[in-house]
């Protein structure tokens, strides 16, 4: 049972790390601000989500799991908001930043 959980954790966290990598590559390679933001938030949200999912298999107790999910939700909220604000400024300036 614990072996199966460990395998699930490794799979999930590794996939999450892959999304972080993909997001970083997108941030560095995409041509304009809006696409870069898109790469960053999509990949980071999914990446962090998968890392949190992987860690959920390891925690003991409902409260610890709830905290992990809370961290993910707060990161989602903050990421989405900041992206909106940056994108708005990028569009106002009309440049590729």
């Amino acid at each position: 049972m614990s072996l199966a959980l460990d395998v699930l954790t490794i799979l999930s966290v590794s996939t999450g790390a892959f999304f972080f990598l993909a997001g970083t590559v997108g941030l560095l390679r995409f041509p304009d601000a809006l696409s870069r933001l898109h790469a960053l938030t999509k990949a980071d949200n999914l990446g962090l989500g998968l890392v949190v999912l992987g860690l959920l298999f390891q925690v003991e107790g409902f409260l610890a799991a709830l905290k992990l999910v809370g961290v993910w939700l707060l990161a989602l909220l903050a990421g989405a908001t900041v992206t909106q604000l940056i994108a708005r400024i990028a569009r106002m300036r009309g440049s590729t930043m």
Partner: protein
Amino acid sequence: MAFDIGLVTLVLGVAAWTIGARETFAAVVGFVAYGLLLALVWVRLAAPDVAMTEAALGSGLTGGLLLGASTRLARTDGPAAIEKPSAIIRLAAAVLCTLVSAGLAALVLLMPEPAPTLAPQVAANMAATGLGNPVTAVLMAYRAIDTLLEVVVLLLALAGMWSLAPDRLWGGFPGPRHQDDPDSVLSFIGQLLVPVGILVGIHIFWVGSVAPGGEFQGATILAAMGILAMMAGLVGAPAVSGRWLRLVLVVGPAVFFTIGLAGFAMAGGFLAYPEAHAKMLILMIEIPVTLSIAATLALLVAGPPERTTQR
């Protein structure tokens, strides 16, 4: 081990990049990233209390202050680039910085092995404070005077910053007026995040007695929520002459100092607590201190008074 080496390389790399950055804004962004990485280093050193302080205060709040400063300095970036310091001054700065770094490195490397420590004494006597977190026990009981002075220093910093305001704006409202647009993203996140953040801040403060956390970390989160609410235009920044505001700023240090003085009568020394009531007295200090730190930090970020009316 490989992770630690990678982390250290990253910290040094970001530090070098931050120093080398040409634009003030880019340097501030580098500084924030550097602070977050440093928090990871503290976690690796099994010091979660320091890690939280570094992330909240060192990286987050100081980053916010520096961002404000860099915005104000943006107009002077051009002229500053023209008046380049002479080669001698730059050489002298480089030599001085190298000497300081070398001195610090030598101190760390020459430390006796094992390093002198009072940790066993703290662990042995911690029960007397009624606290479960040794870091909080040190901050609030054994080195309470340092904590008291830190709180006072914050207040002095705020008074110093306020005194930068021109006379005609004295007693006015800090920072520009932020528009309250109910449809804006900022307004939405403010309404959603501020209540959650206040809960998290109080939680971090409260668990400080038994787990990593404490008044500085909790107060920083509360301050951040105050700043967010002000930026979203949900609440107006209070006038710096407001009586209630002044009271909130002073109540923490005042209560701390009063209970410290009462220590002479109760336990025979400044900031000494009678053993039976130690935990209650520490809590009586911590609650107003957290409130004062939160207000002070939020107002530090808000800046000096810039307008005399709320509009």
